[in-house]
C-alpha cells in the first residue's frame, strides 16, 4: 500500500515550502525516519524525514518548486512492483489522509432588525436621541418629540432628523409655480396646489425662499404674540440731561464713544438690578428669576433681525457696554454672531427711533418676561413748572407678560428707568 508524502509543516507560521533539495531519487529505498529532502521554509532550511519505509516511486514537486503545507509532493511505494505500477500508471488512490476538520459553522445571521418605534414620547420621558441628532434638530429648530426614532431602542438618529426635515420641508424655489403657501408649521405639510392663474391678473405674488432666520422669526413671533397674556405700559421721558451727558462724553478727550443705545442698556440694567422681579422669564410652566442681567438689543439686518446680548450689563461701565455693543453689531452685520452672542438674554430693548417712530408695542422675546420698545427723541412742547417749554422727549413702551409681571411691578421698574435717564449721572456712578 503506497504512502503519500505531503509537504510537512515545520514551524507554527509556515504555510508553503519549497523543495530545496531531494536527497533521494525515484527508485531509491527509503527508511522510516530517514531524511529524504531539504525544505526551505519561511524561517530556515529544514530537513524532512520519511514516515514510511519503501521505494520512492514518484516525485510530484521537484527541486525549486513549492507546495502548500499538507499538499502531496511524492509517493512511497511499499515495494518494487508497486513502484513500477505507480511510475507507469495512474496516480495511486491516496490513502485516507487525515482530512482537515469541517470549518466551524458560521453563526447564523441575527434576525431582521426590530421594527422601528415611531410615535410620540411621554412629555416627561427623556427623549432618546444621539448627540448628533440633537444638534441637527436644534439647528433646524425641530422639536425632538415630533420626530420618530428608528435607532436602537427607538433612539432618534441623524437619519431620522433628516427624513423628518424632508417631510416637513418648506416650499422652496422649486415651488415657483405653486400658489404661495403659509409659513410652514411643524404640524402640517405645506399645501401643494397646482398652478391656477387668476383671471384678473392676481397679485403677481412669488413665494420668497425664506432664510432659516426668517422662518424662525415667523414661528417665534407667532408663538410669542398669541401665547401669553401681555400688556403694555408707556412713558414719556425727558432726555435733555441724557443728551447733555452724551455730548459731554463725546467732547471729552480719550473717552470711549458712547451712544444713546448704550445709555439705554445701562439704565435698563441698573433698573433690572433694583427690580429683580422684572429680570425674569417664563419657562415651561413657571416663573424663573434670573441671577444675571443680560440685556439684548435688536439689530436690524437685511433680511431679518437678531438680538445680540450684552452680558452682565449691570456690571459694565458705559464705555464697556458701548464697546461690546459695537462688536456685537459688527458681528451681526457680517453674519458672524455665535450662539453665545445671542443666547441667555434676560431683557430686550428694541429701538425704532432712528426711523422716526414715536411709539410702538414690541413683541416679547421669549422666555423673557418683558421687552422695551424705544421711540425717537423729538423736541416736543411740555409743561414744566406751569410753563410750556420745548424739551427733548422720548417715548418708551414696556410690553410685559402678565404671568410673570403685574402692572405695578412693571410701572415701578419704568419709574426707576426714567429716573436714571433723567438723572443720567447716576448711570456713571
Amino acid at each position, binding site marked *: 500500500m503506497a504512502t503519500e508524502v*505531503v509537504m*510537512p*509543516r*515545520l*514551524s*507554527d507560521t*509556515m504555510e508553503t515550502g519549497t523543495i530545496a533539495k531531494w536527497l533521494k531519487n525515484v527508485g531509491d529505498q527509503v527508511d522510516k*525516519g530517514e531524511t529524504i529532502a531539504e525544505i526551505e521554509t519561511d*524561517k*530556515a*532550511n*529544514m530537513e*524532512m524525514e520519511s*514516515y514510511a519505509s519503501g521505494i520512492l516511486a514518484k516525485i510530484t514537486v521537484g527541486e525549486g518548486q513549492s507546495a502548500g*503545507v*499538507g499538499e502531496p509532493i511524492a509517493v512511497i511505494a511499499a515495494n518494487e512492483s508497486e513502484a513500477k505500477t505507480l511510475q507507469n500508471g495512474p496516480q495511486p488512490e491516496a490513502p485516507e489522509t*487525515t482530512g*482537515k*476538520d469541517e470549518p*466551524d459553522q458560521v453563526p447564523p445571521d441575527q434576525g431582521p432588525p426590530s421594527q422601528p418605534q415611531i410615535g410620540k414620547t411621554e412629555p416627561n420621558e427623556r427623549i432618546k436621541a444621539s448627540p448628533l441628532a440633537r444638534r441637527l434638530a436644534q439647528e433646524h429648530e425641530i422639536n425632538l418629540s415630533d420626530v420618530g426614532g428608528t435607532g436602537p431602542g427607538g433612539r432618534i438618529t441623524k437619519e431620522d432628523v433628516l427624513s423628518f426635515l424632508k417631510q416637513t420641508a418648506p416650499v422652496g424655489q422649486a415651488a415657483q409655480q405653486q400658489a404661495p403657501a403659509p409659513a410652514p408649521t411643524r404640524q402640517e405639510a405645506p399645501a401643494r396646489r397646482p398652478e391656477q392663474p387668476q383671471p384678473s391678473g392676481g397679485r403677481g405674488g412669488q413665494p420668497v425662499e425664506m432664510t432659516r432666520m426668517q422662518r424662525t422669526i415667523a414661528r417665534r413671533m407667532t408663538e410669542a404674540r398669541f401665547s401669553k397674556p401681555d400688556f403694555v405700559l408707556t412713558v414719556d421721558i425727558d432726555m435733555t440731561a441724557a443728551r447733555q451727558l452724551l455730548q459731554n462724553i463725546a467732547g471729552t478727550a480719550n473717552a470711549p464713544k458712547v451712544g444713546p443705545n448704550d445709555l439705554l442698556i445701562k439704565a435698563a440694567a441698573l433698573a433690572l438690578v433694583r427690580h429683580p422681579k422684572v429680570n425674569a422669564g417664563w419657562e415651561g410652566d413657571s416663573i424663573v428669576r434670573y441671577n444675571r442681567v443680560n440685556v439684548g438689543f435688536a439689530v436690524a439686518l437685511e433680511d431679518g433681525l437678531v438680538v445680540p446680548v450684552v452680558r452682565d450689563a449691570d456690571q459694565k461701565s458705559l464705555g464697556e457696554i458701548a464697546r461690546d455693543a459695537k462688536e456685537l453689531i459688527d458681528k451681526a452685520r457680517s453674519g458672524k454672531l455665535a450662539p453665545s452672542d445671542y443666547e441667555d438674554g434676560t431683557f430686550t430693548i428694541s429701538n425704532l427711533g432712528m426711523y422716526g417712530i414715536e411709539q410702538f408695542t414690541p413683541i416679547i422675546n421669549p422666555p423673557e418676561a418683558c421687552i422695551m420698545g424705544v421711540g425717537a427723541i423729538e423736541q416736543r412742547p411740555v409743561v414744566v413748572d406751569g410753563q410750556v417749554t420745548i424739551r427733548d422727549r422720548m417715548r418708551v413702551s414696556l410690553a410685559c407678560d402678565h404671568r410673570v409681571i403685574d402692572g405695578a411691578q412693571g410701572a415701578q421698574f419704568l419709574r426707576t428707568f426714567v429716573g436714571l435717564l433723567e438723572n443720567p449721572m447716576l448711570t456713571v456712578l
Partner: protein
Amino acid sequence: MTAEATRLRPHTTHNQKVEFHESRDELHAMFRMMVLIRHFEDKTYEMYTRARIGGYCHMNHGEEATVVGTIGPLRQQDWIVSFYREHGHILARGTDPKYVMAELFGKETGVAHGRGGSMHLFDASRHFMGGYGIVAGQMPLGLGVGWSIKYRDADEVILLLTGDGAMANGASHESLNMIGLYRLPVITVVVNNLYGMGTTVDRSAANPDLWKRGDMYAMHGVQVDGMDVMAVKRTMADAMDRARKGEPSLIEAITYRYRGHSVADAARYRTREEVESWRDQDPIERFYRQLSDAGMIAEDDRKAIEESVDRQVEDAVEFAENSPQPDPSGLFDALYVNPPANV
C-alpha cells in the same frame, strides 16, 4: 561550541556495571516507558508536521533516562511541577497517552480540555501540576507546593523539574533560596541538555557546574549521568529520602535533546557530529544493553514491547483524531469559580 558541549561529563560513567535490585517486571515497565516516550514523541513530531498539532511543540527525544529515572520513583501522593518540555513527563507519571495526544490536538478530551496545549498539560489525580511556558516561571510554584507539604505536615515530596537555561533566571534564585531556607521537601532536577534554545550552558552560566549551587542554597547538590536511567533512579531515591528528612536536593542531570528546541528549530547551533556522538549514548539502547547483560531482557521482550507501544501510540492518535474540538460556547468555562453575573 562542540568542544564546550562535550566538555561537560557526568560524574557517573556510562560503562559502570549495574546491580539490579528491582524486579524484572519493574525494569520492563521502566524500559517500556522510555520506549513509549520516544515513540510518542516521534509521533508528536509527525503530527505537528501534518498540522494536527499547532503552536509550539517541545520534545523529549534523548531525555528518556532523566524523565523515567526521576519520575518513576515517585509515590502516588508525591507531586510534580514541570515546564513546557513535558510530554514525556506526564506520560512517565502514568497519564494515558490518549488524553495527552488529545490535548496536543486541541480536543475537548485532552488533559486540559483543549485549553492548554503542549505547554500546559495537567493531571490533578496524579498530582502533575503543569506545564508552564515562562522559563523558570514554574520554580516559585514548586516552592509553593513544597511549602504546602511542610505546612500540612504530610508525607509527600515534590519533584520540581527545570532546565539549564532557566537557572540563569531570577525566579530560580528566589525559589531555590526559599526552598533551602525553609528546608522544604523539594527535589529540584535540572534537566541539563546543554542548550537553552541555541545557547550552551557555558554561554549562559558564569559557573556552568549547576549542581554546585546546591551549596549556595543549603541543599544537597549532585550531578548525575542523565543518559543512564539507573543512575538517575538511584540518585532520585536518595534525594527522596533526604527530602523526607527535611533536606532539599538540587540534581543536575546531564542529558541531550536529539531534536531542536522545538519542531521549528533548524538547530544550526550544533554540528551533526555532536548530535551523532550523543546518539551513540542513546539512553534506551544503553538501558537495553544493561538489562540484556544482566539477563533481565531478551530480544523478543523488546519486540513485544515495541509493538505494544506502537499500537498504543496509534490508538492515541486515533482517539485524538476522533475526539471533538471544544465548542466555542465553552469559551469562558473555568475562567472563574462561581463568578457573579457581572464579571
